[in-house]
Each structure stands twice: as C-alpha cells, then as structure tokens.
C-alpha cells in the first residue's frame, strides 16, 4: 500500500464511517474551492469530494465537468483553483497561463487504461496490433469496411465511436495511435461516454474507445480488444505492460491558491493521500507510490 505517507487523517480506507471518525481529531476548516476539467478524472474527483466533504463539511468544493480543455480555459481565466486533466497541459495553454501570471503545479493522481471496445457479437476482432488500430481509425478519404483491414473480416462498413475530439482521451488516442493524423470523419464524437457505450453496444460493426472505468462499468455489454496481446486490467495498466494505451491522470493546482488558502492545501493533501484508493474504487488504477510521494513533496513546497 501507500501507507508510508499516511497520517491520522488519510488512511487507505475510503469508507465514510472511518473518515468521519478521524474527522473529530481535526480542526474544522471553512472555505471555498473550485475546480473544473476532465470528465475522465471526474469520477475520481467526485469520490474525493464526497469523502472530503464528510470530513470537512464546512469546506465548499465545487467541481465542474467541462473536459480537460474546458477546465484549462477556466483555469487560465482565473475562475478555478485547480484543473483536472486527462493529458498533460499543452504548450499553448501553459503559455497563456504564463501570460496571465498564473503559476501552477502538476500532480499525477492515477492511471487510466484506454480501452478499445467492440460489440459483443463481434467475433473477428479480439486482438489488434497498434498498426491495425491505426489502419482502422485513420481517415483515408473513403468509407472503410472491416474487410479492407483484413480480408477475413466481414465485408461491412465499420461504425466508429470516439470521445469528443477535444477531450484528453481523444487527444491521447490521436497522438499515440494515429501519430497526430486525422481520425475517420464518419466517427460519432461525443463528450458523453455513455453515448459511446450505447453506440457500440447496439451495432455489430461498431468499434469505440474510452476510459478504462467506462469499460469496467459496462463489461458485460461490450468486448474489449487486446492490444498487442495485452488485455487492459488493473495490473497490466499499473505495471506499464499495457502500452501504449495507459496514461496518467492529472490535477493542475494553482500555486497561489495553496499559498493563500489553507483549505486548498488541506484538500489537496487529502486528495493525494487518498487518490490511489478512491481511483480504484471507481474503476481506475492507482499510480505507483513514488508518484504520490513526489506530489506530496511538491505540495509541501508550495505551502
């Protein structure tokens, strides 16, 4: 476990009963915080906020779910204290933050395995190479059939479902699998991951991808595709075996907020201490312990 760093308030349990018990040792804080950002990170953040508010009921934490980019937009505008992200910050965004004089710190809080899924009735695509995936998903200027990729596969049009083009998930996929090339035009792009689940679930010729957590929640409705022979599981993602589709999830913290707002420090500390367990509880994968201790060091430095 990650117990080395734990103090009285941040033991590995995510049960609210225990959190409440430990809360009594604590001085009650009051204050406000707001964050926004990735929908991928949202379930983890929701878990953190849920547990934290049981501990510190007078601290008001609000988190929007506008996607990684939307979160950064607000972060840049100075509207939020922290921003959830499913990809590292982009150079343009970093530049804008600099322009506005906002210093920030990146924290890794968990890992996500990006899962490729197909319909339950899909009997042909069980395992795919990265090259095949690229071939399937890249825009080639014409409609693609399964048989175009592999002549043994059905002679039917492929139906695509992908997260919204600006989401961190999409970015990651396009960067790592498509190497920056365009995704097929005919793909249905949706910010609502459930829509993707529904889409793939209802069409035999469909393929889609999204965060591991969504796959876990819909395991029985979809089939997952192995990538180069590796199936995404907690272990394969954490160990790095599932490449290249496992990726870290981030929270970007505004330095000024940690410095000037004791509540912010308290919240972030709580978040880092509990992120691993809470991430697993909602279907993600905990980061290696070094990551969390590094985060904590950074946080202490900001205080």
């Amino acid at each position: 476990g990650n117990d080395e760093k734990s103090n009285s308030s941040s033991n590995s349990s995510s049960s609210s009963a225990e959190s409440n018990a430990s809360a009594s040792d604590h001085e009650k804080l009051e204050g406000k915080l707001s964050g926004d950002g990735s929908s991928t990170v949202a379930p983890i953040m929701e878990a953190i906020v849920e547990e934290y508010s049981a501990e510190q009921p007078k601290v008001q934490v609000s988190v929007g779910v506008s996607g990684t980019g939307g979160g950064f937009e607000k972060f840049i505008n100075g509207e939020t204290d922290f921003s959830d992200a499913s990809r590292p910050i982009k150079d343009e965004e970093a530049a804008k933050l600099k322009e506005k004089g906002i210093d920030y710190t990146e924290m890794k809080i968990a890992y996500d395995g990006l899962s490729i899924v197909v319909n339950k009735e899909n009997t042909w695509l069980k395992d795919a190479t990265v090259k095949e995936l690229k071939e399937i998903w890249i825009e080639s200027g014409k409609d693609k059939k399964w048989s175009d990729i592999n002549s043994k596969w059905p002679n039917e049009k492929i139906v695509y479902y992908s997260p919204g083009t600006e989401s961190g998930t999409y970015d990651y996929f396009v960067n790592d699998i498509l190497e920056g090339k365009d995704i097929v035009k005919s793909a249905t792009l949706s910010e609502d991951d459930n829509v993707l689940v529904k889409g793939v679930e209802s069409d035999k010729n469909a393929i889609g991808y999204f965060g591991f957590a969504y796959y876990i929640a819909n395991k029985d409705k979809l089939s997952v595709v192995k990538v180069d022979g590796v199936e995404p599981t907690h272990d394969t993602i954490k160990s790095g075996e599932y490449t290249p589709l496992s990726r870290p999830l981030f929270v970007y913290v505004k330095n000024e907020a940690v410095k000037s707002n004791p509540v912010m420090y308290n919240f972030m500390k709580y978040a880092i201490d509990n992120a691993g367990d809470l991430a697993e509880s909602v279907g993600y994968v905990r980061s290696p312990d070094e990551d969390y201790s590094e985060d904590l060091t950074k946080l202490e430095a900001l205080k």
Partner: protein
Amino acid sequence: MNYLHEDRVKKRMASRLIKNKLLKSFFLGATLLSLVVLAILMYRMISQGHAYLNWDFLTNFSSRFPQNAGIKAALIGSLWLLAVVAPVSLLFGVGAAVYLEEYAKKSKLTTFIQMNISNLAGVPSIVFGLLGLTIFVRMLSLGKSVLAAGFTMSLLILPVIIVASQEAIRAVPKDLREASYGMGATKWQTIVKIVLPSAIPGILTGGILALSRAIGETAPLVVLGIPVIIHFLPEGLLSEFTALPMQIFDWAKRPQEEFQYVAAAGILVLMIVLVIMNSVAIIIRNKFSKRY
C-alpha cells in the same frame, strides 16, 4: 329553378355525416395521442426511477455510488435559482407589460420594442447561455453563481412573461378602467387599484408556466459551466450551485447503468416540482377566472 333537389340533399347528407364522424375520431385520436405520450413518458420514468426515489434520495448529495446518490444539492440549488428568477423576471416582465399596455404611445420605438420582445422569445436558450457566460459570469464577474444563472434564466423567460402579462392586462375589461377614470382616478391609481388586481391571475398563470420552463432548462446551464460535483448548499446569491437538469444530465452520462435509473429518479423529482408549479397555476386560474 331548383338546384338543390331534395333527394340530392338527402343522399349527400348521409356521407357528409359519416365524414364528420370519421374525422372527429381522427381529431380526437390526435388529441389523445399527446396524453398517451405523456402517460408512456411518466410510466417509463416511474418504472426506471421509482426504486431510487426515497427520502435518502432527497436528502443526500450526489455520490459515486448510485445507491447513495441524492439530489439535495440540485433540488435546493434549483429552488435558489427560482428565488432569483421569480422576482427578477416578474418585476421586469410586469413592468414592461404595464408600460407597453398603459403608457406607450403608438410610436416607432414602441413597435420596435414589441417586435424585439417577440423576436427574443424565439432565440434558442443556448444562445442565452452564451450571453450569460460572456456578460454575467465573466464581464460582471459573478462567476458560476446563483445570481449569474438567475439573471440568464430571467432574460430567457422575460419575453414570455411580458407577453402573458400584456395579455392579462389587455383582458381587463375596458368598463372597469372607464369606471375608475370616470371617478377622477389618475392613471397610476387605476393601474394599481383596478388593472393589476384584475390581471394578477393571468400574470401569475403565465408567470408560473414561464418559471417552470426556467426550472427545466439545461442548455444555458451547460454553457455557463455550472458545476456538478458539489457537496454543499448555496449560502447566498453569489454561491456556486448546481441545478436539477444539470444533475440529471450528469447522471445520464455516468458509465454505470444504475446511474440511468438514478437519472430517471431525478427526472421524477423534476417532474413533481413542475406538476406542483403547474397545479398552482391551474388553481390560481380556476379560482379567479370567473371574476367578471
């Protein structure tokens, strides 16, 4: 000369009467269809959501566990929203209606204002979201607060309230105004003592219907970026908050299927709120409709 021979008329009479009967059934069917849709809709929501709809659902904040998820923040947030939208939109809506009906002279400006109102009524709600984001959230730095969302929603329903109030004011019989003027009352006295009291049922009915629209609107809130992960209740007009449709939208997007049912339960709560508001409107209307 006789064109309408008696037997000719008689002969056609039968087919005319049958046509009348047939189309009447079609018209009735079309009318009932909307009732059927409403019934199916309610049935679906109830059958999907009833299991989650209990006291805990109303008193819990949302949660990552579907069985613990509750609607407290959204329900109270929506009530806060209502507390801003109702006074603001009624004040400005009724004020504008009184001005247009009682004071405005027939001028180009008046025609322009009137045209503008009917145009505004047709502007999609999502565009109001863009307006609110730019003006209230950012320019006036109200943030994603109850006030910013309240102002946005007020503008959204303002045209509806103005038009309903204008109609209610217009429906006050001319008789009553004349009687009041005839006794030497000033215009303002007549408006306050005669016109508005008589128009109030109409204004309130229209107003409540408009407010229920404000309660159910999602798109502007999405554009404003109203947060959904929130475990506290608003403490003031500048607090951040979440609202029923936002919470439902969020649940509907969750990966676990159970959240679909939680969303349905949320929809039930929203619908109950709306039915209560509508019933109030109907009671007001029936209670006051036979006044003159």
